C-alpha cells in the first residue's frame, strides 16, 4: 500500500495500462500538450507520443464517435471528456452507438470503450459546469457506469474499465482529485458491479457513491462518537448495481439514508429507495430518506452554491430523523 492522491492513482493507472497493452490509447481535449484540464494525463504525451495520446479539437460528438469506431475494430480507447457536462454533446454516440452495437449486431461487435469524465459542483463553476448527470447513462442498458470514491478504487475501477469488453463510463469528481488514500501496489483490478461496505454499523445504512460516499463516511465516523452506529455503503458502480449489498445492509439496520450529489427527482436515490422497498420492505422501521442536491441550476454565488449541495449537516439531520430523534 502507498498513500497517493486520487489524481495520481488515475494517472498511474493510465500509464500502466498504456504500457501493458498496445491497443490502449488516450483521446481527448487538451490531454497531451496541455497535460489535461485536471492534469490526470500529465507527462503521458512525452512518454508515449501522439499516436497513443491524441489531442482532439473541441468536438465531443466527433471524437467520442471516433473512439467507438476504433473500439469496434479492437482498439481500447480511453476518452477523456473534460467534464460530464460536455458529454451531452456526445450523448447520441454514447447512447445510440456505444450502448447498442453489441445488441444491434446480434453479438458480432464489441465496444471496449472507456469514457473518463468528472462530475460535481462546489467549484463556483456555475450551472453548466457543475452537473451530476451520471444517472442519464446509468439508465441505459448496454452501458456500465462506475464511480470511484476512494483512491484505491480510482486505480482498481479504472483498470477494470479499460480491460472490460463493454463500454464503461468512469465517473470522476472534481472535489476528489486532491484527496489522498492508500492504494494497493502493483496490479489491482476491481470487480465492476460490487458495492463496498466502507464502514460496518448497526443502526442505520447510509448509501452513497463518489463524493457523497466520502462525506457519508465522514459523517458516520462523527456519529460513532455520539453512540450512533452507521453502516456506510459505497455503491462504486451504478450499472450494474449491487442491489444485494444494499438490501442485506438494510435488512440488518432497518433504516436507510441515501446521499447523492445529483438532483432528487428521478435520481440515483430514487432507484436505491425502490430497491430497498423491493428487497427489504419488511425489515424497515422508518421511511427511507434521501439527501440530494437542491432542484435548481447550480448558482455561481458561494452561499447559494453551498446551500444547494448536500453536506454533512444535511446528512446528519436526515439520519437523526430516521432514527426518531436519537
Amino acid at each position, binding site marked *: 500500500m502507498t498513500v497517493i492522491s486520487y489524481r495520481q492513482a488515475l494517472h498511474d493507472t493510465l500509464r500502466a495500462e498504456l504500457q501493458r497493452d498496445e491497443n490502449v*490509447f488516450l483521446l481527448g481535449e487538451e490531454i497531451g500538450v496541455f497535460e489535461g484540464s485536471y492534469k490526470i494525463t500529465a507527462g503521458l504525451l512525452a512518454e508515449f507520443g501522439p*499516436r497513443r495520446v491524441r489531442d*482532439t*479539437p473541441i*468536438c465531443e*460528438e*466527433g*471524437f*467520442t*464517435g*471516433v*473512439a*467507438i*469506431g*476504433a*473500439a*469496434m*475494430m*479492437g*482498439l481500447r480507447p480511453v476518452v477523456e471528456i473534460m467534464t460530464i457536462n460536455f458529454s451531452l454533446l456526445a450523448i*447520441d*454516440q454514447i447512447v*445510440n*452507438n456505444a450502448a447498442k*452495437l*453489441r*445488441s*444491434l*449486431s*446480434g*453479438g*458480432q*461487435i*464489441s465496444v*471496449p470503450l472507456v469514457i473518463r469524465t468528472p462530475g460535481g459542483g462546489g467549484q463556483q463553476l456555475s450551472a453548466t459546469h457543475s452537473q451530476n448527470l451520471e444517472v442519464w447513462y446509468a439508465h441505459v*442498458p*448496454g452501458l*456500465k457506469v462506475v464511480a470511484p470514491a476512494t483512491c484505491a478504487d480510482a486505480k482498481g475501477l479504472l483498470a477494470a474499465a479499460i480491460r*472490460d*469488453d*463493454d463500454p464503461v463510463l468512469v465517473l470522476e469528481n472534481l472535489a476528489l482529485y486532491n484527496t489522498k488514500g492508500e492504494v494497493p501496489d502493483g496490479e489491482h483490478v476491481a470487480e465492476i*458491479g460490487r458495492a463496498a461496505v466502507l464502514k460496518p454499523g448497526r443502526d442505520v445504512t447510509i448509501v452513497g457513491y463518489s463524493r457523497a460516499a466520502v462525506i457519508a463516511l465522514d459523517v458516520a465516523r462523527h456519529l460513532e462518537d455520539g453512540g450512533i452506529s452507521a453502516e456506510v455503503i459505497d455503491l462504486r458502480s451504478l*450499472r*450494474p*448495481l*449491487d*442491489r444485494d449489498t444494499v438490501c442485506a445492509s438494510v435488512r440488518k439496520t432497518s433504516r436507510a439514508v441515501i446521499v447523492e450529489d445529483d438532483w432528487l427527482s428521478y435520481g440515483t436515490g430514487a432507484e436505491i429507495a425502490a*430497491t430497498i422497498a*423491493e*428487497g427489504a420492505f419488511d425489515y424497515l422501521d422508518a421511511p427511507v430518506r434521501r439527501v440530494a442536491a437542491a432542484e435548481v441550476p447550480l448558482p455561481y454565488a458561494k452561499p447559494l452554491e453551498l446551500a444547494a449541495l448536500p453536506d454533512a449537516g444535511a446528512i446528519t439531520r436526515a439520519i437523526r430523523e430516521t432514527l426518531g430523534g436519537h
Partner: protein
Amino acid sequence: MVGLTAALRDEDYLFATYREHGYALARGADPGRVMAELFGRTDGLSNGRGGSMHLFDTARRLLGGYGIVGGQIPLATGAAFAIAYKDAPGPDAPAVMCLLGDATTNIGAFHESLNLAALWHLPVVYVIVNNQLGMGTPVEAAAAEPELWKRGCAYRMPGQRVDGNDVVTVRDAARTALDRARGEHQPTLLETVSYRLRGHSVVDAARYRTAEDTERLRREDPLPAFRSHLIASDVLTDEAASQLDAEAGKAVAAAVDFADASPPPDVATLFEHVYATPAASVYRGLPGDPVTGGEPG
C-alpha cells in the same frame, strides 16, 4: 450501389445508412440471413435484434446499417483511425467507405468527422448518396451549399460530384478515392447524384412531387439504362439478362422461404447480446434474467 461496392475490396470496411439492404447483399451477406433479419427471426444476421435498419456482417466487413441519421459517420472515421493506428499506408492497405444521405451533410457529426479525418489523415471515403430528397425536403431547401461535395473544401478534402446513375463512372470515382485512402491515408468526399423513385418509407405517398416528375425520372433509372447499354455494347444478350432476372427472382424466393422457416427468437434469449460480461440489473424475473435466471427475485 453496384458501382460503389464494385470498387471495394474484401479487406475494406463499409458503414452504411438505414437503406443498406442492397449493400449487404453486394458485400456477400447471405440473402436468407438478410431476409430473416427483416422478418425478425433467429437466423437473421443479428438474431432478430437489429431489424431492417441495422444489418451487420462483420465477416464481410459490413459494420452496420444505422438508424440514426449520420450516426455512422464518426464510427467510420474511428474505424479509419484504427487502420491508421495499426498500419502504414500502402497499395494493399484496407480502407473505409462511409455512406450517407444528402440531408446528413447538414448535421454536426458530419462536419466534425470530416475535420478529424482531414486533420489526422485517415483512410476513409465519405460517399454522399444524393437522391435529392431528405424525406420530403429537397436539397436546396436544406443545404445552403447544395453542391454537397463542396462542403469538403472547408476541410481541404478532395471531392467530386459524379452522375450516380452511371454505374461505371461511380465505380471509377470510388476506386480512385479508395486508392487515395489506402495509398496516402487521405480522405475523400464523393457525391453521387441520383434520385429516389419510391417514397421514403411505407408511410410516404410522395405528395411532394408530381406523377410527371416521377415518370421523367423513371426514364433515367440506371437499372434498365445500364441493361440496354450492355446489350447495345454486345456484352450481354437480352436472353442472358432475362436469365439473370430469373435467377435473382429465385434467390429472393429462396431467401423468403429460408426466413419463413426460421423460428422467432426464444424469449429466454431476451438478455443475450446486451453485455460481453453479463451485468446484474433488475429484479424482474424475466426469462433469462442474468440476476435471477428467470426466478422472481
